[in-house]
């Protein structure tokens, strides 16, 4: 009787062990992921940081630029394992970065993936000042300033802003993603909504603060 009970107990223990092995074949689920993943930027100096996870020996950081899929590693800005809780890189304007961090234990097992979300670097802008002579109509209402990339500005160009009459100057920022020639023109609008013909066009080269492009053609030769 005692032998049978012992065998039964051992069988149950073995069964439970097998079940545990099936449910948790690796240590993946035992490791907590890192938390509070965020990306901060000062100029173009970007830092992805996170808080430590219990049991983690290292952290695997993945950063993608431009909304590309999670894999492959070669297309990532960062795809590496490290001990530290921050990762620094140089970000580019007018680009979106997606980032993830895993915790990694001493056996190389990964925690669940934790996405830090996306961070979009803004396009750079340049300040522009436009002045004009006031219209003389008694029922003048406002001026409509239009802007376009290139040398030509027309009535169909996008409206940059509206300025109430009798103001005759406007200073504002023009968003740009790359160095380009911008054209500006304007119309006058009266209180009943009648719009004048288009003014003369002025142009200005907008220089944005983009950094250099990525160097190319790097090779190495090893000399014994």
């Amino acid at each position, binding site marked *: 009787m005692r032998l049978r009970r012992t065998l039964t107990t051992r069988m149950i223990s073995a069964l439970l062990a097998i079940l545990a092995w099936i449910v948790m074949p690796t240590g993946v689920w035992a490791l907590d992921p890192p938390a509070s993943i965020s990306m901060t930027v000062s*100029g*173009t100096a970007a830092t992805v940081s996170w808080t430590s996870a219990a049991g983690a020996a290292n952290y695997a950081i993945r950063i993608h630029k431009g909304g590309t899929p999670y894999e492959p590693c070669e297309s990532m*800005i*960062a*795809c*590496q394992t490290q001990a530290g809780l921050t*990762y*620094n*890189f*140089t970000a*580019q304007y007018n680009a979106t970065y997606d980032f993830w961090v895993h915790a990694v234990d001493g056996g190389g097992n990964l925690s669940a993936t934790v996405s830090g979300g996306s961070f979009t670097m803004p396009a750079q802008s340049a300040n522009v000042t436009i002045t004009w002579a006031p219209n003389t109509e008694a029922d003048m209402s406002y001026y409509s300033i239009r802007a376009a990339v290139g040398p030509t500005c027309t009535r169909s160009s996008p409206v940059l802003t509206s300025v109430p009459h009798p103001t005759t100057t406007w200073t504002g920022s023009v968003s740009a993603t790359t160095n380009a020639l911008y054209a500006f023109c304007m119309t006058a609008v009266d209180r009943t909504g009648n719009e004048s013909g288009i003014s003369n066009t002025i142009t200005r080269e907008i220089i944005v*603060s*983009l*950094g*250099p*492009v*990525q*160097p*190319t*053609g*790097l*090779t*190495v*030769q*090893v*000399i*014994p």
Partner: protein
Amino acid sequence: MATKRCGAAIVLIVLLATAPPGWAVTAVLSWNPNPELTVVSYRVYRTATSQCAPLPVNLLATVQAPNTQYVDVGIEHTQYYCITAVDEGLRESTPSSTVTAAYPTVTPGGSCD
């Protein structure tokens, strides 16, 4: 006995297969000049792992433009390099592709027949 001698020879060759300490090699890096006239320098980064991150801790040297070559003398392990371009506003580009300077190893030769 002949087998023992051959075994000893293999051990000796394996010991020599990785270069002995002090056997340093030189890595010559070169790259294309950046197209921007505002680029003033290039930063050369070196890491011992294949992910060459442009971090301050990995900064090996700054090369003034228009030079596009850097010679790393005395490396004793496989190293990985990448570079960035820096303009006059100290804006730094994203890193180039990573290249590998493989530390040479001696391949055992001969046979023990």
